[in-house]
């Protein structure tokens, strides 16, 4: 059995052509990236703004509540309801992308908001008191400090979208989900299992890439363990503070 799945996965015939793994993988990645990018464009500024003002929190609550709506139901509803009004191939793609977008926004929005919310009030207060305009406070202080949680939100959105895009193949979105749909329909078990394996592998790879991005984008002063790493690596014999008994981890 495993050999047959393996055989399907490595056969060059499974990879080439408009229905091949290569094309489907490309579609899957493209849809996912486009959807998550759109979710970032909507969710991050909105989350920053709500966090900054401390007003409009109901939106966060609403977005979180909306996560309880079953995506599958939403997907089919949109496909049946909106699909017929859109011509051609897009009739299938647009409802799926919209459903995926609705799925992706809440984690990004909530992550961003939580990131801003978690900032020490004294830090923002200092930023304002130094004479930063609201936009500067957001850009130069709140966004960088919220970055770890923003990126966690993006990662979880991405995982959900990659997984759910698989289901969207049922309503006509391409991507790796086709192998599951077509494999089941034609009783081609190696194709079904191979598709599932590909989705899982893709999710892992994308998450690894995002983890790397997280390392690069999170300012060094906010990284976990940064203190230990740097503090033990260097020792300062500062006479002014050598007898300073307050040398201890940050509160």
């Amino acid at each position, binding site marked *: 059995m495993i050999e047959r799945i393996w055989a399907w996965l490595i056969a060059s015939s499974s990879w080439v052509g408009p229905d091949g793994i290569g094309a489907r993988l490309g579609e899957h990645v493209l849809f996912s990236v486009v959807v998550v990018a759109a979710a970032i464009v909507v969710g991050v500024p909105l989350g920053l703004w709500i966090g900054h003002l401390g007003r409009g929190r109901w939106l966060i609550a609403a977005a979180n509540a909306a996560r309880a709506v079953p995506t599958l139901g939403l997907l089919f509803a949109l496909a049946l309801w909106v699909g017929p009004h859109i011509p051609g191939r897009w009739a299938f793609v647009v409802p799926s992308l919209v459903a995926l977008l609705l799925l992706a926004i809440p984690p990004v929005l909530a992550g961003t908001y939580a990131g801003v919310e978690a900032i020490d009030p004294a830090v923002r207060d200092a930023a304002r008191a*130094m*004479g930063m305009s609201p936009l500067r406070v957001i850009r130069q202080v709140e966004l960088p*400090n919220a970055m770890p949680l923003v990126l966690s939100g993006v990662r979880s959105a991405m995982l959900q979208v990659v997984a759910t895009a698989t289901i969207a193949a049922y309503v006509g979105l391409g991507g790796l989900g086709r192998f599951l749909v077509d494999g089941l329909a034609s009783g081609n078990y190696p194709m079904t299992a191979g598709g599932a394996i590909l989705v899982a592998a893709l999710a892992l790879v994308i998450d690894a890439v995002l983890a790397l991005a997280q390392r690069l984008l999170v300012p060094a*002063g*906010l990284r976990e363990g940064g203190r230990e790493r740097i503090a033990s690596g260097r020792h300062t014999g500062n006479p002014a*503070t050598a007898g300073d008994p307050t040398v201890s981890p940050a509160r």
Partner: protein
Amino acid sequence: MIRFDGVSKVYPGGAVAVDNLGLTIPTGQITVLVGPSGCGKTTSLRMINRMVKPTSGTITVDGQDIARIRASKLRRGMGYVLQDAGLFPHRTVLDNIGTVPRLLGWKRARIQERARELLERVGLEDDLADRYPNQLSGGQRQRVGVARALAADPPVLLMDEPFSAVDPVVRDQLQSDLLALQADLSKTIVLVTHDIDEALRLGDQVAVLRRGGHLAQVGSPAELLAHPADDFVADFLGRDRGYRSLAFAGMPRLTLHAERTVTLGEPLPAGGPPWVLVLDAGRPQGWVRTEEVHRPGRRVLVDDLERGGNVARLDSTPREVLDAALSSPAGRGVIIDDQGEFVGTVVASELLALLELERGQR
């Protein structure tokens, strides 16, 4: 000069934080706002840089109504130091210090140079420059906070309980460093604290507030200690008000006594008084008890010293001199000169007699 004129602040919900405050804050001096928790100190301070908007009344800086100055412009001209520094966690020490210069559009090189200069100014090692705030001790963070506030050389410095989050030893150091800095810079400093000792030590002028945002009394530390306006102020100044006021009294002309001394590492000669002062290169090290140390041929060692006596300087206040006398194991206070060398000792009873005498003459 900063002037509060009939300034009140009522927060939404009806809390009267500041009630009809009138206060003049002289240029180039330290004015301390002190009072119990919740009496409106922070609110008063934050109205100066418009972080809080007064409900009524006006605040002027050098005659100009601050309500007419753009908030960001006003704030860039006033350094602000918060209780727990409020440093930006995502920026290095150097970048934190350079915050306001960057807002003012200075060139990169100039910002860097200025930030390094300030780092040294506030007594921090150069190699802290690239650290992040979470890699600093509380005392170091507070110093960086002060450096950040001074970066663009603002004439006014607002400090909200800047030293209350550090332990007493570090606080003492930070306070004396602030006084040294102020001796050079002559900023107009408004400092908030609930610690009366800190207020009396740092303030050229001290404003005592009482709950509900009323100004109870304003004056120099010596004035407050000598003539508290009412029971509230007297209570707030504390029980040992009389003793504290010695820190601000004039120093009477004292007769210094000679003392039998011995150099560290030398043997103690026979037949001395019960206590002998040990010097090292002229500087007092501590006292030794003759009967414990004196043996033929035995040298005085560091371990023999009775420490714990405070020393006072020739220009110290009566409080410090009295403290030196009272804390000395020999009962005589050690006085040193500017070089730290021993010049003589004083006896508490003589100092008190002189203080009594001065008092009688006034």
